[in-house]
């Protein structure tokens, strides 16, 4: 397999190789140095801004922004109409940041669609941006800006815009020759060089720095570079000296001196994660230097102008014709392919090759591995190495070897093998020229699958994303549904198609897929100004709680109310009602409520506690005179305290009841008015609270107070039934213990309730003497009861026997107790016997 190692360049004990990712077929004539170039990490897109400098004398050509995929496929272009751009940079979510001279930052997506803008503050605006850097930390994108008067402003996270002004560098007159952003312990700092001095700016202070182990003769700093994860720092001085160390500035790793003393165009670290070896790649016009701790360096001559991009596990080199990747050869690859390697993986490769040739040597090789018990290691090596290969042919032969090897293993779990095959399939698919995302397996693992999926979605590669999700067996909820939802959101933005067409297309494709939220899609449609489409889409949304808020946002409150009521969720109805209350004029609001009784009753409940007056308006609007009457009655005793106020409320009630043709209520309320007026005068006269009494209680109290005449008058005025009056007067007189008056009353007219109650009431007040007076007048049927009440068993028995009524006899008998009443009991028993005989 020597052809493999042909491109390997040794440096110390490591090898480095550079290989083509793509032949660029883009049509870029301009030199990179005349453009602003920005390339996103993780195989990200390339943004180029041509003609970016303001031409003196008002040249006709405006700047043009072009965005290409990593393979050079044009994704979008935009003629720049805003201000002077100083710097371009990609965010972690693949949005393009365009930083203008005045500190305004405009954010565009991959397709040059404007997303939003923000500014870096007044200081920047006044002093203009001199230089800018976009930097990334985990999940965040930040911006650092250097302004004319040499002040630094930093935003650590553009999603959460907080501007930090860094302290000034004391005595600085000239702009720094080079500077970079460092992240130390999650703190963002700036390292800058002025001549031969190095300064570190953190939030509070500016510290002069000396790098450990730096030769004093090294000269002025020209360039500096931080590694992908801010772990290492390299500086380049005018003597061609390169210092490499940790970014904590505490440890030196190694240094080297290059023959070229000119300031490099770019400098970048080339490190493989978890590898102990480090290397720095320095780019000049015609030459590329790879140097590290080893004595010798690697030099690549360059034919073309090249732009370098730092990646997690290497560097990408972009020129007008090619797109290359430079990286350190991973250990597994090195062991397998190194000439005359006896590593297990290498032997397994040989064995498999011989096996294909049907040679018995295969067995020899295998035996050699197996004898050392290294077959599992060999298989693992081949699988791992397959991942590092760019060419599918090599991937295949490595995987074939692994597959061959694992046949000879007992109880081998194939999950690693399967995962690698799946991953490579995905990576190869997105590496495809048309797609143009050249991710290495290391980057892919770091990026994670969901992020990759997001990126595909962002590039509107919906079919591919769906296919990949299906292939990777991602649960619908996280995979296909999400992609489809994004697709639908994109679809609704297609202005050229009709609402019906789009709604139909979306429903056709999405159906009832789990995890699809039609309301989100509808919301997107609404954002694009397509209200009708949004409403159509909402029809597919099964959840009312998602439909309603959007309908409200679209000012379709009546539709929303309908949906809310249909859902039976009163909270939703309330939401809509309270919205409508503020949004509609009162008349319309009430009219709408009137058509929706459920909403109306809800609102009424609310008004009862919060806005009683509104309640009245509601009834008024409906001409609901009955409820209005009730409303006034309620007011008459709950809110009104004074008698006049109460009378006024009641008068209103009478009017309303009359309008409602409820004679009964009107009459009852009129009576109440009459009563209150009388009560008031009584209250004044008697100095006793009469007003809250009912009619019954009023008369009762009048009798208690000895105002018989007044009581009589009320009895007549209010047409109180005789029975009630008798009960009432009798009880009141008894309570007053006015026995004389009671007797008079009993004689005044024939009692409509008979005379038994007289006996009862006297006994209730334990006055047997008075009770007896009435016994004679009790009707014969009730006389037994009367005698029993006063406890005269003898007489009761007499009466019962006289009536020849067995029930009555039994009643008496049941009251007889023990010896004392034996005589009576006896008498009754005898009478009963007699009765039976007949």
């Amino acid at each position, binding site marked *: 397999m020597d052809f493999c190692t042909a491109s390997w360049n040794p440096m110390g004990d490591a090898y480095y190789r550079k290989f083509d990712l793509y032949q660029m077929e883009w049509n870029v004539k301009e030199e990179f140095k005349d453009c602003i170039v920005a390339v996103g990490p993780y195989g990200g897109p390339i943004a180029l801004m041509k003609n970016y400098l303001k031409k003196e004398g008002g040249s006709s050509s405006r700047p043009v922004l072009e965005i290409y995929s990593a393979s050079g496929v044009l994704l979008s272009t935009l003629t720049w109409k805003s201000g002077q751009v100083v710097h371009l940079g990609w965010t972690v979510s693949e949005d393009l940041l365009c930083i203008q001279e005045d500190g305004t930052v405009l954010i565009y997506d991959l397709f040059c669609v404007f997303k939003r803008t923000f500014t870096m503050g007044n200081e920047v605006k006044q002093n203009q941006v001199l230089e800018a850097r976009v930097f990334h930390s985990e999940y965040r994108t930040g911006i650092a800006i250097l302004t004319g008067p040499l002040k630094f402003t930093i935003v650590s996270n553009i999603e959460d815009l907080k501007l930090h002004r860094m302290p000034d560098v004391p005595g600085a007159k000239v702009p720094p020759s080079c500077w970079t952003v460092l992240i130390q312990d999650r703190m963002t700092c700036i390292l800058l060089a002025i001549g031969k001095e190095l300064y570190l700016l953190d939030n509070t202070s500016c510290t002069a720095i000396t790098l450990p182990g730096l030769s004093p003769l090294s000269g002025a700093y020209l360039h500096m570079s931080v590694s992908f994860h801010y772990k290492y720092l390299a500086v380049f001085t005018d003597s061609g000296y390169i210092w490499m160390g940790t970014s904590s500035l505490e440890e030196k790793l190694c240094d080297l001196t290059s023959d070229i003393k000119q300031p490099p165009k770019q400098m970048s670290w080339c490190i493989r994660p978890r590898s102990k070896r480090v290397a720095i790649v320095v780019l000049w016009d015609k030459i590329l230097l790879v140097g590290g701790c080893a004595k010798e360096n690697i030099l690549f001559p360059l034919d073309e102008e090249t732009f370098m991009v730092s990646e997690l596990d290497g560097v990408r080199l972009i020129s007008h014709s090619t797109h290359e990747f430079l990286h350190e050869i991973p250990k597994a690859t090195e062991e397998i392919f190194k000439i005359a390697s006896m590593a297990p993986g290498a032997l397994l490769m040989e064995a498999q090759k011989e096996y294909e040739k049907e040679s018995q040597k295969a067995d020899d090789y295998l035996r050699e591995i197996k004898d050392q018990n290294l077959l599992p290691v060999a298989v693992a090596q081949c699988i791992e190495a397959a991942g590092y290969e760019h060419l599918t042919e090599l991937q295949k032969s490595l995987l074939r070897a692994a597959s061959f090897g694992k046949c000879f293993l007992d109880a081998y779990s194939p999950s690693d093998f399967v995962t690698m095959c799946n991953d490579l399939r995905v990576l190869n698919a997105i590496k495809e020229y048309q797609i143009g995302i050249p991710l290495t397996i290391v980057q892919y693992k770091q990026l994670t699958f969901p992020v990759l999926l997001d990126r595909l979605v962002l590039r509107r590669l919906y079919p591919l994303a769906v296919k990949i999700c299906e292939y990777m067996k991602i649960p619908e909820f996280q995979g296909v549904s999400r992609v489809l939802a994004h697709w639908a959101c994109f679809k609704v933005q297609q202005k050229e198609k009709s609402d019906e067409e789009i709604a139909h297309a979306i429903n056709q494709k999405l159906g009832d897929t789990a995890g699809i939220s039609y309301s989100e899609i509808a919301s997107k449609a609404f954002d694009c100004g397509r209200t009708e489409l949004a409403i159509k889409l909402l029809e597919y949304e099964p959840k009312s709680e998602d439909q309603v808020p959007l309908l409200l946002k679209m000012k379709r409150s009546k539709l929303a109310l309908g949906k809310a009521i249909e859902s039976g969720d*009163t909270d939703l109805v309330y939401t809509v009602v309270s919205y409508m209350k503020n949004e509609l004029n009162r008349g319309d609001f009430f009219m709408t409520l009137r058509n929706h009784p459920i909403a109306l009753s809800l609102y009424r409940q609310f008004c009862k506690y919060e806005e009683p007056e509104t309640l009245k308006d509601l009834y008024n609007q409906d001409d609901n005179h009955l409820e209005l009457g009730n409303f006034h009655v309620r007011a008459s005793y709950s809110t009104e305290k004074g008698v006049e106020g109460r009378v006024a409320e009641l008068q209103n009630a009478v009017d309303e009841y009359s309008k409602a043709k409820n004679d009964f209520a009107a009459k009852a309320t009129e009576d*109440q008015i009459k009563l209150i007026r009388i009560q008031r005068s009584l209250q004044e006269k008697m100095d006793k609270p009469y007003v809250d009494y009912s009619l019954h209680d009023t008369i009762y109290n009048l009798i208690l107070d000895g105002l018989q005449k007044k009581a009589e008058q009320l009895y007549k005025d209010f047409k109180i039934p005789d029975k009630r009056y008798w009960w009432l007067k009798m009880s009141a007189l008894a309570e007053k213990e006015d026995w004389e008056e009671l007797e008079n009353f009993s004689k005044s007219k024939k009692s409509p309730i008979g005379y038994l109650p007289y006996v009862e009431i006297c006994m209730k007040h334990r006055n047997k003497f008075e009770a007896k007076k009435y016994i004679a007048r009790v009707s014969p049927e009730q006389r037994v009861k009367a005698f029993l009440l006063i406890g005269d068993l003898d007489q009761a028995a007499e009466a019962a026997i006289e009536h020849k009524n067995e029930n009555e006899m039994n009643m008496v008998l049941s009251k007889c107790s023990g010896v004392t009443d034996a005589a009576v009991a006896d008498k009754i028993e005898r009478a009963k016997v007699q009765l039976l005989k007949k």
Partner: protein
Amino acid sequence: MASDRLDAPALPDFTILKRLARDQLIYLLEQLPGKKDLFIEPELMSPLDRIANVSILKQHDIDKLYKLENKPIYSNSEQLCFLIRPRVKHVKHIANLVNADKKAGLSKKYKIIFSPQKFYACDMILEEEGVFGDVTSDEWPFYLLPLDDDIISMELPEFYRDYFLEGEQRWIGTVARSLNLLNTIFGPMSKVYGIGRCAKMTYEMWKELLEDEEVVQKERKPDLGLVFMIDRDVDYITPMCSQVVYEGLVDDIFRIKCGSVEFGPEVTSSDRSVKILLNSQDKVFGEIRNEHFSNVFSFLSQKARNLQSQYDKRRGMDIKQMKTFVSQELKGLKQEHRMLSLHIGACESIMKKKTKQDFQELLKTEHSLLEGFDIRECINLIEEHINRQVSPIESLRLLCLLSLTENGLIAKDYRSLKTQYLQSYGSEHLLTFSNLKRAGLLTEQTPTEALTAVESRVGKLVTDKAVGKLTDAFSSLAKKSHFRGISKKLGLIPRVDGDYDLKTPRDMAYVFSGAYIPLSCKIMEHVLVRKSWAGLEEVMRLLNNIEFSEQLTERNSFQDSYRTIVVVFLGGCTFSEISALRFLGKEIGYRFVFLTTAITNSARILESMTETKS
């Protein structure tokens, strides 16, 4: 019936619901770390006490406990926690407290825990009062309180007024979620029957919840098989009758509150009141709760004799026997003894009140009304009742019973009785009558019969969820009762030769001294025995045709669970109904679990309809 008698299946253990609620509450309290004072709205105090007592609350950093009343509070704590029902009144009160503190320059932490859920209106109030940002809020999903082995209450007495009077549907979702919770833990339930508009809506919402759940139901043995939902307004007659089974009587007279009752000095025959739990744990109570009152006293005296003889065993014991007696039996005996004496006291107290002439007459009137005899005499008696100011609620109860059984009062009586009532108790009761009319409890007979046609049409409209356009007038029409017809069809008034044997009753009528079988229970019996609504067409027409039955899950192999039935009373159920169904269960080998929005009786229903000056 007795021939194919099956043993009723065992009941699942509902105490898990309590544990669940407790854990949820503790979790919420811990969301506000550190010492805090807890303000509890009065209505939640008893239910809370059944879930987590004071010592548990203290363990979780509750410093002081207060009752939330409509007045300023005095608390030194930096953190105040409020546990309330989602009511506008309370939220407003809390908002005022916060604003007062703000004015005084105090900064405290406030947290409102809404039980069982928060309503949008609550947030709206907080927002309007400008304290939305100062207060954090949470929901304590405490839906179900097991009061006893077979009674689960939502403790939402306001459900009745909110829905049946105000037409507010906000609690329906709550009931649906409760059902869902019950189904998740003890289901899957296989079939649902229901009658009433509210039942139907509740079921629809529950169905949506069921559909939302993505869980694949495993074939596990369900503890609960069927659900039967019924609206309170399907049967207003039953709660309007005087209760005569022991538990119902205790409720009518002493008011059972959240499963416990407070016996006053007249019962305890001491100078203090005693609060006890009334449930099946109390053995004495367990044996008498479902009995007709006339049997209770003799039972208790028998029990007392037994107890005495057990005590008497002590005599002639040697030391060792005595030791085991004291350590094992004595405590139980003492407890039983205590309970026994309390129940005897309660009985005496009840006897004193209920054996009076008045009560007997009242019962007679009720029975006449149910049977439709001597209506004129009944009306006179009711009038006298009102005239003598015997009791405002009792009078209303009789009026309602009259209206319900007679299909409304004739115009003349309606006016005169109302006038009498207003004269006795004040004219603000004009509004009470307006409420009763709207709820369909006390109505005026409509002169033409043509309206019945409209009614049944409206009835059909009501079943259609989308058609919410029902004016109040129509719905009150739809609620009109056709008691006579229904009673005849279902045989609610048992024909008895001689005296009804209350000791060994033959049917559920025993809960009303043999005079009447509760309509609600009779409907259930009918449906459960026939396993469908078939044969009830005529009755359903009279009840406006709002019945439904639906299969929830495929028929599973656990036939046994079919015989455990959750009866859902929307708007409350009475102890008489519980007793009647327990009796029915024993007869036909079914086990009933009662899920009710609250335990109710005539007084509770009518008080919620009454407009008072306070």
